[in-house]
Each structure stands twice: as C-alpha cells, then as structure tokens.
C-alpha cells in the first residue's frame, strides 16, 4: 500500500521543524511515495516482472536570499537530520540571489477540489498477464509479425508538499499504462512500430485486442520503405508527432528560457507567432487528466491559461523565481504545463490529406534536432508518401527541416483532437518544409 497522508505529513513537518531549529529563515519540503508493478511479455510469454517501491524526499532551505537543496531516498530520522545539517551549511555559504524566495502566500492553492486522479483498483499481476496474452495474440495474427513485446504498468503515488509559510497539502494519483511494440519483416526490410494507452483509471485503458491490432497494422504498413528525393513538400504530422511541436513551444515560453534570453520567443508577448487560426490552451483541471494538478510544484494555484489566442502569444509559463526576474506573477507553472492542447481546427482529417495532390505524412521522428535558441528544427523521419489523399508507399531515411518561427505560422490543424495524453494535438499540416533524401 502506498503510504498515507499522515505518514508523509509527519515526515514533512519533522523536516520543516528541524530546518527552522537550525536557523533556516524559510524551508520547503516534498515527500513522496510511489509503488509500481510492471509485467513484460515477449512473443506471447512472460519475460519479466518488476516491482518498485520508492520513497523520495527533497528539501530546500533558505537563509534570507541564500538557498540550497538536497534530496534523498532514505527517510530515517537520523539520515534526514544529517542531510538537513549539510543542506543548511551549504545554504550559508551559497551567494545571495535577490530573486530567491518561497512563492507569494496569496498565490498558494487554498481549496483542493477532487480531479478524480486516483483509482484504487488493484490490477493483480495475473490479470496483467491475461491482458498481455490477449494483446500479443491479436498483435501476432499476421505472419509478417516476427516479434512482439508488451508491458503493463500499474502505479500508485502519494505526496505532500509543505513549506514554512504554512502550506501543507498533497494527494494520491494513479496511472495504468499498457504498451505494445511489434517487429515485422519482409524480404526487403525489418520495421518496428508501437501503440500504447496510459490512463489514470484502469477502466479507461484501451482494450488489449485493439491495442495489439493497431500496433501490428502500423508496423506492417511500414515494410519495404523507399527513400525519396530532396524537395520542398507539404508535411502532415500524425497526432503522435504533432503534439511534440506543442512540447517544443512550451519549452520556448518557459519563464526560465525567457529570463535567460535563450528562447526564440523572447519578447514576443502580444505578437503573432502562430497562424491566426491557432489557439493553444493549458488546462490543469480536466477530470482524470494525465497532466491535471491542483497546484504546481511550489504549491501555487494553477488556472487555465490561454497561451496562444488567434495566433498571438498571451502568456509565458511562470514560476516564482523566474517570475520575480521578469516582474511577473507566478501562474502556477513551476514544473511546466499541465494538460496542454491545440484547439481543434475546422478541416476534417480526410480533407487535410487531400489538400495537396502530393504530401508527406510523418509517423515518427528521431534525433534531438530542435534548437530553441534559434528555432532551427532538423530531425530524421519515417512516414508515407500521400497522393490524392491516399498512402502510396512508406518512406524512410529522410530528414525534415525548417525553423519553428516559419513552421508555426504555416500550421493547419484538422478537427480530430482527442484528449489521450497530457499534451494533445489534432493532425497537423505544415507547408514549405524541406525534406532531405536522395
């Protein structure tokens, strides 16, 4: 069983009391406990089981404007005492930083509403095994599938965040995740693809059979790929890739990147950065949402933020420290976005596919090719050549490149938005990018 609030609270207040006693002017502490159980299958039989049980503690101590932190997994009182001593010793010789402080008291979350993020259902390992058997059966019906690997993970967590201004709250969360990776082979090639489902509640997880079928189908259609020539072409990003554009955007508007001046979106507030049909929203209070939260990692209340309105940048993601630097109030985004999404567009998936007589549909990218200082983007890609709205043949060993500043202004979104993950996007088309191939 995951440790209860009382246990975590008693550890948190022990830490705060001790820090205060040693002379810390302020302190904040997070104590968490998490239990995970994973079962792995391969080619329809059990391959591994993995159980983890972990406590985690992190403490920040302040001496005026001086601050330092420690973290540990060892929650024995004796160890905590040694660590806090060490932490506070370090704090005292760390140089002052005028922006260091606990969050403003009036911004701290006050009322915790239930977002239904915890499902206490215990999915026994035997049931996980049954699920994975069904999944792999359905994934291996086609003889071209030569390897299947799948896993089911169940996680239960609890945490308490407390600070010396009297904030002390936390809550339990759960997650269930099933995934399947399949390998297919024909005379020309060997390809891999995947499908997964991750939810707060067990009953929302996709059916094993659907997951297996989909993974297999997506893998088989990649067989015998061709390399295409280098050209400028319209690119359609599958949902699993288009949401990555949102993540890159979110990193570029973090208050830390803005304050340091290392973002291509610095000084762009109230300016057009996306096509004017685009709206981007970050909503922390979606019931059962994978990214939902009652408060951020500093205890600050988080409300829904419209980040992009009709293509115009309206907000950065602000935490306490960088907010003070930029003269902005924290908007509860220490730790990043919550449930981030593009509002859906007004063209159907089918019409988007037919918009050009020829386009490139991307299902996977590899490499770390996003430069958030310059906005330059260049990654390896796999996908399909689309002609007249239909997949013609699979394509690989190509790269796609552009600059986010131009790409964002040329985005067209389909109307197929679904809330599956903590970052969600409809299918996306961007015109005018460069493909490098033969």
């Amino acid at each position: 069983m995951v440790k209860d609030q009382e246990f975590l609270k008693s550890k948190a207040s022990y830490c705060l009391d001790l820090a205060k006693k040693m002379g810390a002017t302020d302190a904040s502490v997070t104590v968490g406990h998490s239990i995970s159980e994973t079962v792995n299958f391969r080619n329809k039989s059990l391959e591994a089981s993995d159980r983890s049980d972990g406590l985690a503690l992190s403490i920040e101590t302040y001496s005026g404007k001086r601050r330092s932190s420690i973290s540990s997994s060892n929650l024995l009182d004796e160890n905590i005492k040694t660590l806090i001593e060490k932490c506070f010793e370090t704090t005292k010789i760390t140089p002052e930083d005028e922006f260091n402080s606990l969050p403003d008291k009036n911004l701290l979350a006050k009322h915790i509403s239930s977002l239904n993020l915890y499902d206490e259902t215990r999915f026994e390992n035997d049931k996980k095994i049954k699920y994975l058997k069904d999944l792999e059966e359905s994934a291996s019906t086609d003889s071209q599938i030569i390897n299947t690997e799948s896993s089911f993970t169940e996680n239960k967590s609890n945490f308490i965040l407390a600070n010396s201004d009297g904030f002390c709250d936390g809550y339990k969360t759960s997650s269930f995740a099933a995934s399947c990776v399949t390998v297919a082979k024909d005379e020309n090639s060997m390809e891999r693809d995947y499908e997964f489902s991750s939810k707060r509640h067990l009953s929302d997880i996709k059916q094993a059979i659907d997951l297996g079928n989909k993974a297999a189908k997506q893998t088989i259609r990649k067989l015998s790929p061709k390399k295409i020539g280098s050209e400028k072409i319209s690119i359609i990003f599958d949902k699993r890739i288009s949401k990555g554009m949102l993540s890159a955007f979110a990193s570029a508007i973090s208050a830390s990147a803005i304050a340091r001046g290392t973002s291509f979106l610095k000084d762009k507030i109230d300016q057009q950065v996306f096509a004017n049909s685009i709206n981007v929203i970050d909503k922390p209070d979606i019931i059962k949402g994978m990214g939902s939260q009652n408060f951020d990692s500093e205890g600050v209340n988080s409300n829904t933020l419209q980040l992009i309105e009709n293509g115009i940048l309206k907000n950065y993601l602000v935490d306490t420290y960088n907010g003070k630097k930029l003269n902005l109030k924290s908007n509860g985004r220490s730790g990043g976005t919550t449930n981030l999404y593009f509002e859906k567009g007004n063209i159907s998936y089918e019409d988007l596919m037919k918009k050009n007589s020829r386009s490139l549909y991307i299902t996977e990218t590899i490499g770390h090719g996003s430069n958030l200082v310059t906005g330059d983007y260049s990654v390896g890609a796999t996908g399909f050549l689309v002609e007249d709205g239909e997949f013609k043949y699979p394509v690989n060993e190509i790269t796609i490149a552009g600059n986010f500043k131009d790409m964002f202004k040329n985005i067209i979104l389909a109307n197929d938005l679904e809330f599956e993950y903590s970052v969600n996007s409809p299918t996306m088309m961007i015109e005018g990018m460069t493909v490098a191939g033969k």
Partner: protein
Amino acid sequence: MNNFFNKSDLTRQDADKIVSETLNNCDDGELYLEESKSESILLDDNKIKSSNYSSDLGFGLRAISDEVVAYSYSNEISKDSLKNSSENLKSTLKSIKGTYNHEIPKSNKKFYEDINPIEQKTLDSKLEVLNKVNDFLRKKDGSVKQVTASFAGEQKSIEIIRSGGEALTDIRPLIRFNVSVMLEKNGRKETGVYGIGGRQSYDDYLKNDNWKNVCEEAFRIASVNLESKPAPAGEMKVVLGPGWPAILIHEAIGHGLEGDFNRKKTSAFHDLMGEKVASEGVTIVDDGTIDNRRGSLTIDDEGTPTERTVLIENGILKNFMQDRHNARLMNTRSTGSGRRENYRHIVLPRMRNTMMLSGNQTQDEMIKSVDKGIFAVSFGGGQVDITSGKFVFNCTEAYEINNGKIGSPIKGATLIGDGPSILKEVSMVGNDMMLDPGIGTCGKAGQGVPVGVAQPSILIDKMTVGGTKL
C-alpha cells in the same frame, strides 16, 4: 569499503540466507546494493543558481529462470523489505526451475581509485571556479550574453551478493565540468557547449587553469555558429573529425551489437555474425578497461570484470556485447557489459568506451578528395531505430567542403544514415584517433549510463544531410 549492513536490522548472514533461498532454483540472479552520493552546482545568468546534494541508498533483488527476469527493488534496506522482495520474485517464478550458475570470472585490476570527488574539493573553491568562468567569458567579448557553468560529482558504492554468499564490490567516482555560452551579434543568437570529465578528482581535470580551455572551446563553437549559413539538403560526402563524432559509431553500430536485440533478433545485425559489415581497415572495439575514462568500469553491474571486446575486426563482425542473461541464452560468455543506471533498474547489455581504431590516412587527404560535401567536427545527441537500422545525429559544428577546401560554417543539421551499410561507405580511416572529452551519457530503455567514444577522422562516401538548402 561501504558497509551496507550497519544501517538497519539486516545482517550479512540474513542477506546471504535470503539471497541463497530465493535463487536456489533459478539460473542466475543476485542482490545488488548501492549507495550513491552526488552533487550538482550550477552557475547561470550571473548567479549561483542551484547547489544540490543528494544521497540515495537501496537494493535490487533479481532472479532469472530460463527467459524470465523477475526484479524487485526498494530504498529501504531492512530484513522485512528484502523478504518482501524475495516473496515477490518467488511468486513470479514459481513454475520455472533452473540451475544456478556460480561461475563468475575474477580480476585484480582496477581502473580508477576509491575516491569521493565531492569531498576532495571544497564548495568554496568550486564556487570560485564557476565565478571565474563567468567573469572570464563575459569580459572576453561583448557578444557574450549568457554563461552557464556547472560541476557534477558522484561517488557510487556497490556490492553484489550472489547465491552462496560470494560478494563483489566496487567504488566508482565520476565528475563532469561543463560550460555553455550564448553569443548575440546583429540580432543572431548561437550557443556553444563544451565539457570535460571522467573518474578522477575535479582538480585532476582542472589543473593548470584548464577551465579556461573549456571556456575558449565553448566560445569558439558559438562564434563559428554565428557565421553559419543554412546547411545543404541531400546525399553527399561527409568527413568526420576525430574524437566525439564517434557517437556516429555508438548510434549506427554500437546499439545494434548489444546482445539483447540480437538474441531477440530485432537488431538489423542479428544474422550478420562473421560477415563483412564494414570497409576493410575498419576495426571497432568496446573497451571498459581504459584508466579513469567515463565509460570504464572495474566490474560491471553483475560483478563481471570488464574487458576490451572486439566488435568489428578489419570489416568483419566478430562479437556482440553481452550481459550474463543474454550470454547464457545465446550460449556464449558475458563480455562484462551488464549495466544499470542504478538499483531501480534491471541490467541490460550496454556500451562502455566504443572506439574505432586508427588507420593510416590524414584528415587533409580526406578533405582534399571531396568536391562537394561537409566536414563535421562536433555533435549534440544521436538516436537509432535498432530494427530498421536508421540512425541520426545532430551537428553542432560543421563546414561546407567545396573542391577540396573547407568553406563556410553551416547551421546545425541532422545527418541520417543506415547502420548496417554506413561502415561500408567509409573510404578513408585517419591516423589521428582521439578519445572524447568525457561527457557522454547513453540512454536505453529509460536508463542513462556514462559512456565514452573515440575515433580517428573518417571519410564517408554517402550520407544524407538534413539541411534546408536544396
């Protein structure tokens, strides 16, 4: 020597007993105990932004029978906790019986000292170096707009207890010093990053004001990029510089030669043992035995002494990298490549220091032989799709080559290639093999482990460059 048994009610005798009992009917497995102490100190935006210390202690109990691996970890080292893990493993493996393999090779060689680098340098003197870095770079040139510098240090103590009570221990120091600088000129911003590190004390790397060289190198890379033009797009010849660009070898070849993917036949290399996979003159080894290198290990995380494993010899595929589990299932021996990020993770076959050995040509000859292509000197990260064999890596410093001469610097672009065929496109191997500066971390299945790479300059006849200029 770390004593894991004076911290709780668990005695060594208890641990031996539980381990032997749990693994009695299994093919392999062990109790892995780990204590790590680490620090990170960061200067950013003219200030000491953070100083963090962390300590972690825990165990992982692993039992293997046939193809099934059962694993359970906890950060509470106690009799109850170990018993719980043991019960958990027994219930997973209840229907499978094995025969425990007690054999494990021994060696007295050590590749680093038992030091704790964190305690060998005072916090004050670390802060002083970081502040000097900031002042030095900001005074150096008006275009310097942002400086980030950091120290990261760690000492990890491990003990492996096998069925029957055999115990193996290792104490592993590791440090890294990093500088990143952002320049702005005529409205353009570019960054340059450089770092050094390995398994010695901070001062071994920082003597003779070596921090200045790290600053100069980061500044140089950023300055070059300020002048960069859009990169070309399409297939062309690529000359790679020596040292760190060997992450191409790591991505293109290394991962595909790890034992697990080949046992499962999901690697593009699984049926190529003994075949020609590279041009003649190409020899690649994975070596865990180089003194004080970031990827070196005295013993791996299963207790096997590391070695220098020849992967490709003169173009022919010779060996895969193995941990005990995959080696047993493939009827071969462990190459001392079983590694894990920490006690929270299972062991996987991983790289250590992956190196292409020198040939006898010069970088000059390579450049002169290219009519149109690029010369790539430094890289950011890379990634590979093991199954299709396609891999990428991102240039952070590269130049055009026109008619045998190095031309303008080009913007960061991704290069993409095909692992099993790329080494056949190597037409020249340089005489200038160099190790990387000690900064690599390899990710696999969510686990990061420190690694090294090395190579001489090489000429690749055909590779796709992912620029924007057609």
